[in-house]
């Protein structure tokens, strides 16, 4: 009797403790029973008449980037959508951990009419999980969205599944990541933009050793990154594309190929000579940007849109600054090809359990018109900007929001920006448009990424010979059936 009691008590205690610890995920999974009977329909469960009057129709949106910068502004933002579309809009914009909140909301049966997603791998997973409506018919029949001037036809390929069906609508134009260099430092040290790996090494070494910030202290680094995230601009020198490349039907990961060995050795040399910021392994995007903005590092690899924002931020701080960030092309590969990383698009999905899919569709059209784009970029009229006789003027609030309320840049070529683009941004976007290509994230990439990143960082920081690191990557990837060769 006693051992049984002990065992039973232990199960209860262990269970209680465990599920207190992981309560979020388990509770949400557990409370999904009521949703099991929802049956997806092919075009978004059109339970609502498309011709229904918007008056009184609700629209519930879950967004990660789109919306106000503060809860108060977010409310104004929702009211502005209501004003333009006529739908009684609720806009929920979690302050953090957006992806987890989306998953929790979906698994607990929450019903949204639109959800913003920023990741193709998540879209593919959501399609498999029966979450996403097929919007092919809607997009092709929409006079707004089918117009190539609004969204170029080729761009829709990004949001198609294997059967060619479209599952989302873009919320903004997504650019590419590229080497971003301190142009003022290059000019000061009489250096030109690097076009080979050797030239890049010399530039980074000069940034480290020649006191480019002029403070008389050896406190600068040539390069920093945020882990392995964005080194595509440099790996391009060996013709290596990030993530998966399918060759003759076989899955390969170029970063785990023998061709990557000299590249990791090159990074290890930078590490050894103190040219590469030793914190690159633990940096996140914000830390990397701060190092660049505070004259600690001469080159980062980052988004095209940030070229302009970095320039603006320094200009706001000091109108007389000489700081000038510039995006440069990746280092060309042996055959002259320049590889750049096109970012996963930001897009809206209509969940299959949406209660007002027609309202969602009307919003998607609105979002790609001039009014929608102005709201998504400049923000709320009267709060972020004023409009007088056709002239836009940013308020102090609007200036601090950097003309980004989820749509810093957009596809619609018929909508011209109300203000000139930030310095350096046009050149960076031109590079992105010319060279950037999407990466292939096959199923299993998240597991593969852990293996590749683990050994690549060891090789780059000099903790492990590059040859051994690549051999270990290949061995583990093959053992886990994550590559074919």
């Amino acid at each position: 009797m006693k051992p049984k009691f002990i065992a039973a008590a232990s199960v209860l205690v262990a269970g209680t403790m465990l599920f207190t610890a992981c309560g979020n995920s388990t509770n949400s999974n557990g409370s999904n029973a009521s949703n099991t009977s929802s049956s997806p329909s092919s075009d978004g469960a059109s339970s609502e008449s498309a011709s229904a009057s918007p008056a009184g129709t609700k629209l519930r949106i879950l967004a990660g980037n789109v919306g106000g910068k503060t809860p108060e502004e977010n409310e104004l933002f929702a009211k502005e959508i209501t004003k333009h579309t006529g739908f009684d809009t609720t806009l929920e914009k979690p302050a953090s951990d957006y992806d987890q909140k989306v998953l929790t909301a979906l698994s607990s049966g929450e019903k949204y009419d639109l959800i913003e997603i920023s990741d193709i791998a998540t879209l593919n997973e959501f399609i498999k999980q029966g979450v996403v409506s097929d919007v092919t018919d809607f997009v092709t029949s929409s006079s707004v969205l089918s117009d190539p001037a609004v969204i170029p036809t080729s761009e829709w390929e990004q949001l198609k599944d294997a059967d060619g069906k479209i599952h989302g609508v873009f919320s903004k134009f997504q650019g590419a990541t590229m080497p971003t260099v301190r142009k003022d430092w290059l000019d000061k040290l009489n250096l030109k933009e690097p076009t080979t790996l050797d030239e890049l090494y010399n530039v980074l070494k000069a940034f480290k050793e020649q006191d480019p910030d002029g403070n008389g202290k050896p406190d600068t680094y040539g390069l920093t990154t945020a882990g392995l995230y964005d080194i595509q601009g440099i790996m391009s020198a060996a013709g290596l594309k990030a993530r998966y490349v399918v060759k003759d039907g076989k899955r390969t990961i170029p970063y785990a190929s023998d061709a990557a060995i000299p590249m990791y050795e090159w990074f290890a040399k930078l590490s050894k000579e103190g040219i590469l910021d030793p914190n690159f392994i633990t940096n996140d995007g914000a830390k990397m940007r701060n190092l660049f903005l505070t004259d600690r590092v001469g080159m980062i690899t980052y988004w095209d849109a940030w070229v302009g924002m970095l320039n603006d931020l320094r200009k706001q701080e000091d109108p007389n600054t000489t700081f000038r960030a510039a995006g440069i092309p990746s280092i060309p590969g042996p055959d002259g090809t320049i590889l750049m990383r096109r970012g996963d698009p930001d897009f809206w999905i209509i969940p299959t359990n949406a209660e007002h899919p027609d309202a969602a569709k009307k919003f998607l059209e609105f979002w790609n018109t001039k009014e929608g784009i102005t709201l998504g970029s400049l923000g709320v009229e009267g709060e972020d900007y004023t409009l007088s006789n056709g002239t836009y003027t940013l308020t102090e609030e609007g200036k601090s929001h950097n003309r980004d309320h989820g749509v810093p840049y957009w596809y619609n070529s018929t909508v011209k920006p109300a203000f000139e683009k930030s310095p350096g941004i046009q050149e960076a976007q031109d590079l992105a448009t010319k060279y950037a290509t999407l990466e292939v994230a096959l199923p299993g990439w998240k597991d593969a990424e852990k293996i590749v990143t683990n050994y690549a960082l060891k090789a780059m920081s000099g903790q492990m010979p590059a040859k051994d690191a690549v051999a270990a990557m290949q061995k583990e990837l093959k053992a886990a059936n994550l590559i074919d060769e």
Partner: protein
Amino acid sequence: MELKSIKKHYMLYIMMVPIVGYFLLFAYYPLAKGLQISLQDYKLMGDRPYIGLTNYETVLHDPFFWQSLRNTVFIGIGILLFGFFAPLVVALSLNEVFKSWFKKMAQLVLYIPHLLSWVVVGGMWIFFLSPDSGLVNLLLKEIGIAPIHFMADEAWGRWVMIGSATWKDMGYNCILFLAGIVSINPSLYEAARMDGASRWQQARYVTIPQLMNTMKVIFLLNTLGIFRIFDQIFVMSNTAIANKVDVLMMYTFSKGILEIRIGQAAAASFFVIVFTLLLTLMTRKLTRFDEV
């Protein structure tokens, strides 16, 4: 007889209802639901067919699961041992301090990290351990030791986790030990002094044996926490050391939330329950907990 007893103590049973209800709703229902999910091909929407033990098989054949288990055992045992002995030593030392203000101040300072979340403590330690501007490496540099990238070196990763967890909870466990020390009958010390016992002998032959029951409770409670380590790793892990520090709860989180393999995550969490149960039974047996 039993019915009579229930009638007699009916008020106590009524008072229990909210607690029992709480556990039924927030612990046992999710537990049962989690078991159900672990047996399904679970999708966020649509059909969720039962697939038997496939999710459990997938977990058992996943090398990341076994690596996570190894990491959990290493880090968990490390935190268990250091988190037990370090505060015990500090509590015994503080017990020897006569200046009351110093004792109180020391307890306060030691306790503060326990009040902070892992987001704060993790961020602090990542900063302290930075290779170029971190406090620890600046001190190492002063004594002629080359900088160590603690947060990027697998050899250090687990020890950083053990050290920072011990540091964070030192004050809490220390106060539990001090509470135990205070409750020791003063006449035992008086008798020891009359027998000529030194301060060390008083600690060795009076304090420590009298503290044994408190130690057992703290040890058991800390043992229960081994497989629940999550917040710290979530905040402090990075891709360079993940292979050596990602624990079972991180594996469950990663499968369930990041990779949306919810059935697999549920199956992994049931392994965690089994491990915790086994560990708890073992610890009870070893510490002879029932004799407390």
